[in-house]
């Protein structure tokens, strides 16, 4: 292993501040989830049927069946989320959304980081390079999920 001596700096006491501001929410409806055992664990298959986005920073609809959660249910019963779909905004734009995060089956902890591709020249350009987190609440059957999104400042 190459050697490296960490230089003495006066920056170790620096604590970078992070703020969270509510941006919008998504009320999503999914089809039933299927799980298929693979050599690496269980791949999940759950299509997004519909969804409504509302809030101060974004309004629109999930383009029906524009994607799925193709996640990975680990042996410790934590799902690594891999959810992608398209949003059709109320002002007529298209936005691609990708979610990564965790849905713990044991305690219901469901937190994701979302990334977006929006038109550079459109009203939602800010989503392209903004860090967005969401907290999610799933119904017992997992078919209805409410995502609440926060802009990281």
């Amino acid at each position: 292993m190459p050697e490296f001596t960490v230089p003495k700096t006066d920056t170790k006491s620096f604590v970078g501040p992070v703020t969270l501001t509510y941006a919008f929410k998504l009320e999503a409806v999914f089809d039933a989830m299927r799980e298929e055992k693979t050599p690496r664990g269980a791949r999940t298959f759950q299509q997004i049927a519909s969804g409504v986005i509302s809030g101060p920073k974004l309004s629109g609809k999930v383009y029906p069946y524009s994607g799925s959660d193709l996640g990975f249910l680990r042996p410790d019963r934590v799902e690594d989320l891999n959810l992608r779909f398209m949003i059709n905004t109320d002002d007529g734009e298209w936005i691609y959304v990708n979610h990564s995060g965790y849905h713990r089956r044991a305690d219901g902890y469901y937190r994701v980081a979302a990334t977006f591709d929006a038109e550079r020249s459109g009203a939602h350009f800010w989503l392209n390079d903004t860090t967005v987190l969401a907290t999610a609440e799933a119904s017992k059957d997992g078919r209805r999920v409410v995502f609440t999104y926060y802009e990281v400042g």
Partner: protein
Amino acid sequence: MELDRRSLIIGASGVAAAAAGGSAAEAAAANASPIVTSTGASPAMRIRWAFSVSIFFKERIRITSNSRRVFVPAMGGDVWGPRLNGKVVPYGGADYAGGQGLDAHYALQADNGQMIYINNRGFMTPQRAPGALPPPPPAPPPPRKPGEPINQSFEAPADSQVPLKMRLTPFFDAPNGPHAWMSRTLFVGHGQRFQGPDHTIFTYYEVL
């Protein structure tokens, strides 16, 4: 902003306690670093400072590919805070930033000797006023003549020169044992560039 300034100050004293080499009691006290709560809606999201990572850099190699890939290896660094202490493995990984933003892969080694993988994803953008338009995409590089060297070493600007906003959503693979919680917890990070020497301080918060 008052809350943030307060958490900054308290968080900094937590750093000092952890750096002092702390007993379990001190670690527990530092563990009570203040919770930052979202504004604007219910349910609120809450985050709490978990640890910080310093990473020191020396070289940068830019490839004028479609995604304008930049290779920035980690020479090493430190990990400290209420929930993790250790070091950054020298040359254990690098940032391979491209068109989609930062995409760094580093190896950390905790104080108990265990290795932890971090995939540090996120965005580093010039600070801009709310509502301001993003900068135009960079001009395509001039065509390269065959045989012309493609490696261009260049200095990343210090924050004092170009105000940068760096926010991250790191994902960890931590081994079974005391650090396993990191593999099932979402994090959000703040990155700050420093020079003399060239390094970045990452402040990582666990999402509660």
